[in-house]
């Protein structure tokens, strides 16, 4: 190893730690905003250029499923499923005037800001996207994001002037208080490294079954209640475990999102601990 090589290696190592610290202190935010501004047209162009090839390759690896048709049908299915789930949710909630009032207070009028997805995290461990709306458009950290079919997509975790990062519900760091619509059993829906969703902390006695809808519960104040997350795909229950492990299929087609809606009318709350 030459002195020049050693110098470069040391420089990169030091730069890595300096950049990590800078990122932690949000010093890099303006640079990232400018970089996304400059590169997003190129990224969008390249993305649309390679999308047909990617769809073709992904179709082969997905046993020949027709991607476009699949996407269209998923969107249609998502919309109809959401309508059904919302109708059921309304029916259930109307049974209790108290619950209904609570929901109205939390989720008065939906005001959405439509945004385009301009970049995606390309690491295999995280699930983050960037959208072309930022703090300048009224987007704030903590706001929730839904798909065009109104299923939960994720949360705004970082905002720049013109862009925001959305941590998807499938991200390993995501956790959403949720409720099974039919049985009203609650739990926490978390993301996983393989892109799946798991609902934890569902009691052994809870009557949950495959096909049930899972919606946000509103517990904790970070999400409004009644937003559809997905449907139960599998339930694992053993006598030794305290809780059932419930696998959930998300309704929104998260890997192919092109446009999302930021729910700007909902302000997430941080609940204070009791005295």
């Amino acid at each position: 190893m030459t002195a020049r090589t050693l110098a470069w290696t040391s420089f990169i190592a030091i730069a890595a730690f300096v950049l990590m610290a800078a990122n932690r202190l949000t010093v890099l935010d303006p640079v990232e905003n400018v970089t996304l501004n400059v590169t997003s047209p190129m990224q969008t162009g390249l993305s649309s250029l390679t999308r047909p090839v990617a769809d073709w390759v992904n179709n082969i690896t997905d046993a020949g499923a027709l991607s476009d048709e699949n996407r269209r049908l998923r969107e249609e299915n998502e919309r109809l499923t959401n309508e059904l789930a919302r109708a059921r949710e309304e029916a259930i909630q109307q049974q209790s005037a108290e619950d209904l009032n609570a929901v109205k207070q939390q989720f008065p009028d939906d005001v959405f800001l439509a945004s385009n997805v301009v970049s995606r995290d390309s690491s295999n461990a995280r699930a983050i996207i960037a959208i072309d709306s930022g703090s300048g458009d009224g987007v704030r950290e903590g706001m929730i994001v839904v798909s065009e079919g109104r299923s939960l997509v994720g949360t705004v975790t970082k905002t720049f002037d013109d862009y925001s990062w959305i941590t998807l519900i499938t991200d390993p760091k995501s956790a959403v208080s949720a409720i099974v619509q039919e049985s009203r059993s609650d739990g926490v829906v978390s993301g996983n490294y393989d892109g799946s969703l798991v609902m934890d902390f569902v009691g052994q006695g809870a009557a949950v079954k495959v096909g049930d809808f899972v919606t946000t519960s509103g517990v904790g104040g970070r999400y409004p209640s009644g937003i559809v997350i997905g449907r139960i795909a599998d339930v694992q229950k053993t006598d030794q475990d305290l809780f059932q492990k419930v696998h959930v299929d998300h309704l929104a087609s998260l890997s192919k999102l092109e446009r999302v809606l930021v729910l700007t009318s909902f302000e997430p709350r941080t609940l204070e601990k009791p005295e």
Partner: protein
Amino acid sequence: MRYWTGAAIAFFLAIVQASSVEQFKILGVSPNLLLVFLVAWLVVRGLDDVLPMLFVAGVTFGLVGLQPPGVILLALLPIAGFGVLRELHVVHSDLILVVLLVFGASLMYETVMLGSIMATGGVRGVPEIGTGLRAAVVPAAIVNVALAPAVYFVMRFARPAQRRGQLSF
């Protein structure tokens, strides 16, 4: 090779990786063309040429790829360590060397990415580390290795003129 040429190539590749390559899902993961390219470049051109590219690629990819640039640089840094293996000539076939280094560098890259999530509280228990290794780290290494021969074949044209005529498969 002039630094600006390498920097331009690295910048463009980082954009391509962030905007296009992430759309391809094989075994549930996206290939890391940037990493494979840097390793192939290391074998073909040497450590002195690849390090400036690694820096530009890492920072650019961090800025446009929604991961902290420092973490990306740290994850790519083992490539410099693997460069020593090239200098030692422990493997005489460049193609086999590329495949071995891509496998090692991919494992290191994905492990650092997984570690960064763990460090910031993204892992809720030991079983999740297993899931991370099974679902992201190992498949990514396999997919990158599958891509390596094709990238190396193209990279051979970037070999210095006096070595270009030599067969080194």
